[in-house]
């Protein structure tokens, strides 16, 4: 292993962690194209590496979110049962697909995510969510509360439509296992818009879940021999640093402009990934 390659891996991981943290997406959507296009890592190994980065960012942030009471642990445990099930399906499915097919699917997902990113600003509720659920769960089972330092208030909420969230969680898990992305892009809007969970708690609960979800499919990739340990180690260490740096700079950026800028970059990268899938990208 050369110092040049190590520097490239650390830098790739750092960039993915930084962008992922700034945009609240997790680093997976960035680390896969960087590894495939810039480092020349095979797609399945890039997805496996991305899953490890997702585990690293999730574990690194989740302990703080649990400590502060932002993560709704009971809701997370209930939903991760379904994300793990989906991740097993996604990881198994990925093993049956060729690298170029997986790259094409990833590029399509990037296009969808970039469009959502450009147009979709997630609403941030600060009120207690109304209980308009037809779900027959007891009202206090998944209830949450946390002290919000930005509003200097205790936020109390009652998540609703848990069964629908479980169904969507299995889809998020499948995407995670198939493409190595965290699944937060689907989980957070679901928790906020459908379940009435405040944004801060939704992001923390999603982050709490994606580590375990990532492990379910990472075990499949590991056992299948898709891991490139040296590449993964460099990228994971870079992501550790990048996500910390991202948390520091995120508050100083203009969110709407940043999202549109990254959406444009992601569309460009998606096009490059499609060229790679077709074999028209230099090896």
């Amino acid at each position: 292993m050369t110092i040049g390659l190590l520097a490239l891996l650390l830098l790739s991981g750092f960039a993915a962690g930084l962008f992922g943290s700034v945009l609240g997406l997790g680093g997976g959507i960035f680390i896969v194209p960087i590894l495939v296009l810039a480092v020349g890592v095979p797609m399945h190994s890039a997805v496996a590496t991305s899953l490890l980065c997702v585990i690293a960012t999730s574990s690194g942030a989740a302990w703080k979110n649990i400590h502060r009471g932002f993560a709704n642990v009971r809701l997370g445990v209930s939903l991760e049962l379904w994300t793990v099930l989906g991740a097993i399906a996604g990881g198994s499915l990925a093993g049956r697909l060729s690298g170029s097919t997986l790259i094409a699917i990833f590029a399509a997902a990037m296009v969808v995510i970039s469009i959502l990113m450009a147009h979709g600003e997630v609403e941030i509720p600060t009120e207690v969510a109304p209980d308009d659920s037809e779900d027959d769960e007891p009202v206090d089972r998944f209830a949450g509360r946390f002290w919000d330092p930005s509003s200097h208030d205790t936020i109390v909420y009652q998540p609703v439509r848990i069964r629908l969230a479980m169904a969507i969680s299995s889809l998020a898990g499948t995407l995670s296992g198939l493409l190595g992305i965290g699944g937060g892009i689907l989980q957070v809007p679901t928790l906020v818009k459908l379940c009435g969970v405040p944004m801060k708690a939704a992001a923390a609960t999603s982050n709490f879940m994606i580590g375990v979800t990532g492990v379910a499919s990472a075990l499949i990739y590991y056992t299948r021999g898709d891991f490139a340990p040296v590449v993964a180690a460099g990228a994971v260490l870079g992501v550790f640093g990048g996500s910390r740096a991202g948390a520091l700079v995120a508050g100083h950026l203009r969110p709407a402009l940043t999202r549109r800028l990254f959406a444009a970059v992601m569309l460009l990268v998606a096009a490059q990934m499609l060229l790679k899938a077709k074999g028209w990208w230099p090896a």
Partner: protein
Amino acid sequence: MVAGVRRGDFAAAAWVLRGGVVLSAILLGLGLADAIVAPDPVPEMDPGGLAEAFRDLPRMRTGAMIHLGLFVLMLTPIARVVAVGIELASRRETTFVLMCVGVLFLLGLSFWIAR
């Protein structure tokens, strides 16, 4: 009455996550440093295996430390599920304990499927 998560709840799970992240980062950092200075080049794309990593670790073979770091990283969320399950069991929240057991069962299943 709201039975939500309060600040300070699930402290053991939080410490498991923090410890796992720190330990894996140290192991990966040492492993990469070892790979840089090793006289024999370490193949970047060689997948290797977990059994091989444990076999090589006592001999301090280059690359084993990286495998161990990745193993600790993957073990961290699993240990978190166990820690959450234990705390929920101590509160006799049977439904959520069963969900934790279900998650652990599925993780075991994923390993079995891949074999």
